[in-house]
């Protein structure tokens, strides 16, 4: 703009130069065109890059959505699992009230033994059984889930245990039927035993190695020392068996020295640690029977150790 003002001020020179100017203008236009074309090319290139980025981003977003969906799924699964273990807990409570519901689940141990071949690749059971790929299955009934020292359980099972999952006929049956539904993160890579009758038979076999929970509601949870939360110092006390013999006379009014367990569980030949643990569970009122809470409640740690030392070898 300022140059045209200048030209109008220069008169003739403007006329003389008009042709040259026109050429120059044309040149400049070409240059500009080229520049513009170059710019457009650059923009296009940039657009392509951006497009690539966008599609890349879109993919990422899709991935995110998928991940979110997966997370939702996992959360739902977790909730189901919690609900399942809650149900299991309720069922365990119910079944404590009604032994029939537990015992109804018991079938043919002979067939169960055959079925156990599906399990024996990972699980040992019986005398000398040890943890392998899976934990050993002795004293399984009445045991807290994920409770065998020295076996690494999935977090999934550990959490279920924290929520109170215990292995009884009903919870075991649900678990074996479909391990992943029951505990989605379980390491037990077993598809599940779908047939009810088969599961009952298998359970009947497993139950043989569970300290014979007898036909009484008390025996299943109490006949095995399940929670080893007793202070190791207490467990370490060496019992005075002779004192234990005297103290035992208070027990034998109800618990038979012969080990019979009709209506009142047997307390002879228990491993000392289990005995001590069980008595402390009564002392702390963790276990429910009020007679036992009273009796254990006033026994000192030494007296409990004395009783454990006496009963561990008692054979009539």
């Amino acid at each position, binding site marked *: 703009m300022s140059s045209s003002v200048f030209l109008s001020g220069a008169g003739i020179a403007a006329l003389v130069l008009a042709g040259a100017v026109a050429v120059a203008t044309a040149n400049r236009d070409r240059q500009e065109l080229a520049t513009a074309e170059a710019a457009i090319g650059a923009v296009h290139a940039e657009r392509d890059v951006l497009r690539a980025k966008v599609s890349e981003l879109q993919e990422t977003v899709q991935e995110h959505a998928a991940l979110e969906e997966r997370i939702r799924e996992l959360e739902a699964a977790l909730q189901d699992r919690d609900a399942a273990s809650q149900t299991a807990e309720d069922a365990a409570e119910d079944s404590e009230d009604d032994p029939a519901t537990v015992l109804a689940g018991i079938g043919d141990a002979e067939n169960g033994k055959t079925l156990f071949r599906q399990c024996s690749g990972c699980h040992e059971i019986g005398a000398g059984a040890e943890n392998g790929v899976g934990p050993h299955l002795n004293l399984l009934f009445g045991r807290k889930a994920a409770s065998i020292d020295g076996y690494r359980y999935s977090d999934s099972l550990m959490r279920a245990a924290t929520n109170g999952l215990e292995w009884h006929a009903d919870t075991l049956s649900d678990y074996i039927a479909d391990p992943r539904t029951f505990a989605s993160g379980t390491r037990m890579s077993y598809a599940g035993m779908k047939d009810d009758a088969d599961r009952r038979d298998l359970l009947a076999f497993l139950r043989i190695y569970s300290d014979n929970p007898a036909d009484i*509601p008390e025996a299943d949870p109490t006949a095995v020392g399940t929670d080893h939360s007793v202070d190791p110092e207490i467990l370490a006390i060496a019992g005075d068996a002779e004192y234990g*013999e005297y103290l035992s006379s*208070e027990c*034998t009014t109800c618990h038979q020295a012969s080990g019979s367990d*009709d*209506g009142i569980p047997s307390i002879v030949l228990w491993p000392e640690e289990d005995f001590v643990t069980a008595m402390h569970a009564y002392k702390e009122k963790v276990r429910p029977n009020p*007679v036992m809470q*009273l009796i254990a409640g*006033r026994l000192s740690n030494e007296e409990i150790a004395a009783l454990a030392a006496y009963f561990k070898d008692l054979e009539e």
Partner: protein
Amino acid sequence: MKLNRRSFVGAIAASTLAAPMVRAGGHGTPRVVVVGGGAGGATAARYIAKDSKGAIDVTLIEPTRTYYTCFFSNLYLGGFKQMDDLGHSYGNLASAYGINVVHDWAVGVDRDAKTVTLAGGGTVPYDKLILSPGIDFVDGSVPGWDLSSQNAMPHAYKAGSQTELLKAQLMAMPEGGVYAMVAPPNPYRCPPGPYERVSMVAHYLKQNNPTAKILIADPKPKFSKQGLFEEGWEKHYGGMIERIGPDFGGENTSVDPAAMTVDIDGDVNKVDVCNVIPAMKAGRIAEIAGVTDGNWAPVNAVDMSTKADPDVYVLGDASQQGDMPKSGFSANSQAKVCANAVRGALTDSRVFPAKFSNTCWSLIDTNDGVKVGATYEATDEKIAKVDGFVSQTGESAELRKATYEESEGWYSGITADMFG
């Protein structure tokens, strides 16, 4: 002489002798005589014989050859047990534990000569005498009733033929008839016993004679496990049971065995069965031995020795010990404390601190069991309660069933503990 003997024993205990010591008054093996082979006596005899392994000579004097437990005898009335289920023989105590079982009555005790006289004529010497004779009845406690009326109006509070008689009378009741019970005043054996009996009689009647009624004349304002029984009676036997307590003259009751009437505070009832459970006192032999004060024999809580004589012990129902109820469980618990102390006094065996406990189960109806229990310790004055519990009203049917099953386990346990 007793003082001398005690200081003699004290001196021995203080000295340090390596060889097992036996403290018998001038003769070989020390001798323990137990009178009464019931919950207290059989347990004491068995534990002393078992634990001393022949170091103490144990004689058990008991007139009957078969001991019928009072515990569970109500369940026999209800039809849950047979009479044979309740009978236990002394054979095993003799053969497996070497106890001299003498089937006779003890009729005299000479505490200076330390001998027991038998109805059959002989005398049995002792170093330590343990009396566990159970109960006898207080004459005149129910006007109109005495022992000679027990066939017309049975007590069935000593098990055996009395229990069978009461059952027979129950079964013979006319349709819609009345079963009366005159309940005892405190203290008496088995505090829940009369009320468990009412439950079992009601159970029988509900099945066989549902329009019949049960009438209880009771001198006590309250009774053991009352809330639980009353809840159960309402639930299972609504309208069948009427209890007249002292607020309505229940303590002012007399009977006429010939007319089969019960007079409750002037209101005369004609009844078909009359189960009179009179006031109780220690079995006669405790009184004969001169160790009673009033109706019962006061004892020291640490070892159940009598206040009257350190060499005479009284167990179970006959003793006046403090807070424990008169029950088979209590008698058995006391027997074991006593056995440990007696053995320690006669040989060099270790004596451990006294610990007592009791649980009484009662059956209200099929699979409806309840329980009450406590732990006890020895104080200078008495056996003192430490802690206790009782079943709650409104418990689940499952818990009640488990409680009943527990009582069956207990029955097997205690009878094995008594008779081996």
